Structure formats: C-alpha cells, structure tokens
C-alpha cells in the first residue's frame, strides 16, 4: 500500500535520535495544509513507536511505514 503513496513533503531525519525526529515532525506539520502527506525518514528504531503514537494522539492519520535497509519511511496525512 505504502508503495503508491506520493508525499507532498519529505523530512529526512537520518542520524537523528529521540526526541529530534518527533520534534522536527511537529515543526514540519505546522507548515503543511490539511490533506497533505508527510514522509518522515528515520534511522532511529525508537521512531517506530514514537511516530504512530504521536499520530494517534494528535489526530493526523498514520498511513503506513516501510523499511528500507536500516531506514524506516513513515507516512502521515495531515488532519
């Protein structure tokens, strides 16, 4: 499913550790409009918990994640 997602913006957090990917995500969302899709790339295994939990709490729709070697791509649809 996540193969077909076309993100409007991409946030590369490679090499950053908790809590930086989450804080950068929050900041990026502020600049986006409702319905747009944000792609977040993270190398921190902690993001696998943090980003879906954040989505659940904040109301943005978590539409998928995919693993590519040691990076994970996450997709959020802005509410």
């Amino acid at each position, binding site marked *: 499913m996540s193969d077909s997602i076309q993100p409007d913006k991409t946030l590369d957090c*490679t090499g950053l*550790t908790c809590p*930086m990917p989450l*804080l*950068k995500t*929050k900041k990026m969302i502020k600049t986006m409009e409702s319905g747009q899709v944000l792609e977040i790339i993270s*190398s921190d295994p902690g993001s696998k918990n943090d980003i879906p939990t954040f989505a659940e709490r904040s109301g943005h729709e978590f539409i998928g994640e995919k693993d590519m070697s040691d990076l994970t791509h996450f997709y959020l649809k802005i509410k």
Partner: protein
Amino acid sequence: MKIFKEIIANWYSKVFYVNWSIGTAGVLIGITSVLVFAWERPWGVAGGLKDLGDTFFYMIGIYANKPNSPFFSTSSILTIGLFWGAFASALMSKQFILRKAPTVEIVKGIIGGSIMGTGAAMAKGCNIGGFYVAMSAMSLGGLCMMVGLFVGAYIGIRYLYWELEHYPSSHIQKSRKKNKTRFLKIQPYLGTIVLILAFITMIIYSQNAYTKLGGLLLFGIAFGIIMHRSRFCFVRFFRDPFMSGEADMIRTVSISLMISIIGFAILKWTGLRDEMVYVTKSFWIGGFIGGIVFGFGMVISGGCGSGSIWRAAEGHLKLIFCVIFFALTTSLVNKIIKASPELNQLMGYRVFLPDYLTYGWSLILLIGLLCFLSLIFTWNERTEKFTIDI
C-alpha cells in the same frame, strides 16, 4: 520436530523482534530492582561510570590513588552488565548498527553527557541511583532529585525548541556502499555467543569466590535486556508531559517504583538489609540542583544514565560519546566535591523518611505521591495544560 521448530521460532520472535510493552518492562524493572538488593546491593548506573572514569584518570596518571578495579567493584560490574546485556539484546534482535549522527548531535551528546556527569556527582547518583533507587530506599534526597529532574527536563525542552528555531540540525548522508544484510543475518548467533560469554564470566567469578559479583553482572545484563527490548526511557517520564503530553511513562514508572518501594521496605523493615543503604546524602541542594542539571543534560543528549548506555550498546555514536563524557566528568566532579568538606556538606544530608514518619506513613506518603503524579499527568494528557507547543 517441525512443530517444535515453529514454536521456538515464534517465541524467539516474540522476545527479540517484537518490542516489549513498557508496562511489562516497568513491572520487570521494579521486581529486578528488589531482587538485586536482596542479592547484594541496589541497582546503580552512575557509580559504575564513575569507577570507570576513575580508572581511566589513574591510568593516564592524573589520579595518584589506585581506584577499585572495575572488575571487582560492585558498581561498575552492574554498569558493565547493563551495557553487555543491551549489546547482546541488540544483536539478538538484529538491531546493532553503528549509527552515525550529524556533528551538531555528537556535540550535544558530549555536552549532555558532561552535564549529566556533573548532575550525578551532585545528586549522588543518576536518575537510577539518585532518583529511582533513592526513592525506593525512602530517601528524601531521592524526592528532591525527582523535583529537580522535572524542572531540568522542562528547561531542556525549552532549549530544544529554541535550538530547532535557530540552529536546526541537519540529517546525515547515508553511504550505501556496503551490503549490511549478511551482518544482520549472523547477529542472533553473535548475540548468543555474547550471552554465553556472560555465563562463563559468571562461572569464573563464582569459582574464585566472587559469586556475588558474578550475580551482579547477570542482574546488570537482565536490566540491559529488559530496557533494550522495551526501549525503556526514563527521560520520557520527565520530558513527555511537557513535550507531547503523553503520560504512559509516568504511569509505568510510578507502578515500577511502587513495586520497588514496597520491596525495599520489606528488606529494610525486617532488618534483612541495612536501613541506610542508598539513603543518599543529597537533601536538599545536591538532589534538587543536581536533578535540574542532570534533567537538562538528559534531554539534550536524549538518554539518561541507563538510557544512554543501552542506546550506546545499540551503536548510536551520539550516545557512545555521551557515555564516555558522562564517565569522565562524573569522576572529576566527584573528586572536586570530595576534596572540599564545605562543598561536600553543601550537597546535603541523608534523610531517611521512616526516621521521621515511621515505615507505614512513609509508604503511604510515597505511594500516594506517585498516585497523585499519575493522576495529574493523566489529566494533563487530556487537557495538555503543561504541554509546551512548538
């Protein structure tokens, strides 16, 4: 035979591929904290790092007196065990990779580690020895550190937001030359070897009449595995209420602490263990100010005493630097504080709550306080009154 293979593969994946829930981990940490005290002494992390720092400074000729050998000090054995266990666990779950970080982040690791080292020296322990265990031991200094840690984490979050506005750190470019899949595949075997080596070390200690030290190594390893598999992060206890509003870590650590407090009370009240163990000499300046300093440092570096170690064991370069600088500064600042009787006295007194309140009321007070904290931060989870917006 095929069915057995399937069952074992399924169990392995449940233990090493699926993250453990932090609730389970919190209960396990509470129980292990009591068991390790019953075995020999309470858990600690910063003391071990200090021993390793002392050894380093002695070896390069800065300290004149020979410190305890890290292989025979109960503190450093626990800390080495924590690293050992997390390293084995990272390998078993195919998560060990040297994870590079942008230069700014490395610098934050070094600064954060040094700040934590300073705070831990003031509070007579990191968030484990100075807060978690000190609180379990019903030390008023532990409560002071908790308050300080909240304040420090709040300042730290404010700083991180400011940094994001003005100096946002960039990501690093990944080099994609090497094929790492083969290394990932053999990791579970390497992890098994690392764990077997731990048992062999335990046997060697035991045969030389150091069974207690060998046991402490295994307890350290248990903490390392529990923390790594659940990605247990004490920083979140202090930081999340202000950052994201989440309170699950507040509830988890509160329950974990209740188990540990009750266990410690049983061991001390019955006279099985000395009452003053881990009643830290940190009421109130050392605990409170040290807590603020430590809390700020742990938010900057993204890992507390124990969290930095298990993340370093997973290969995060930032946290590897953080742990090294933590060990060096905590050793130095400890020396400075110990060298001056006035400064040492300024850090505070040992206050054992049951001396003033009796065991019963101390238990009611501490457990009541944890319930209150959970309640207030769960309320904040819904209302976000304390949460700072970015």
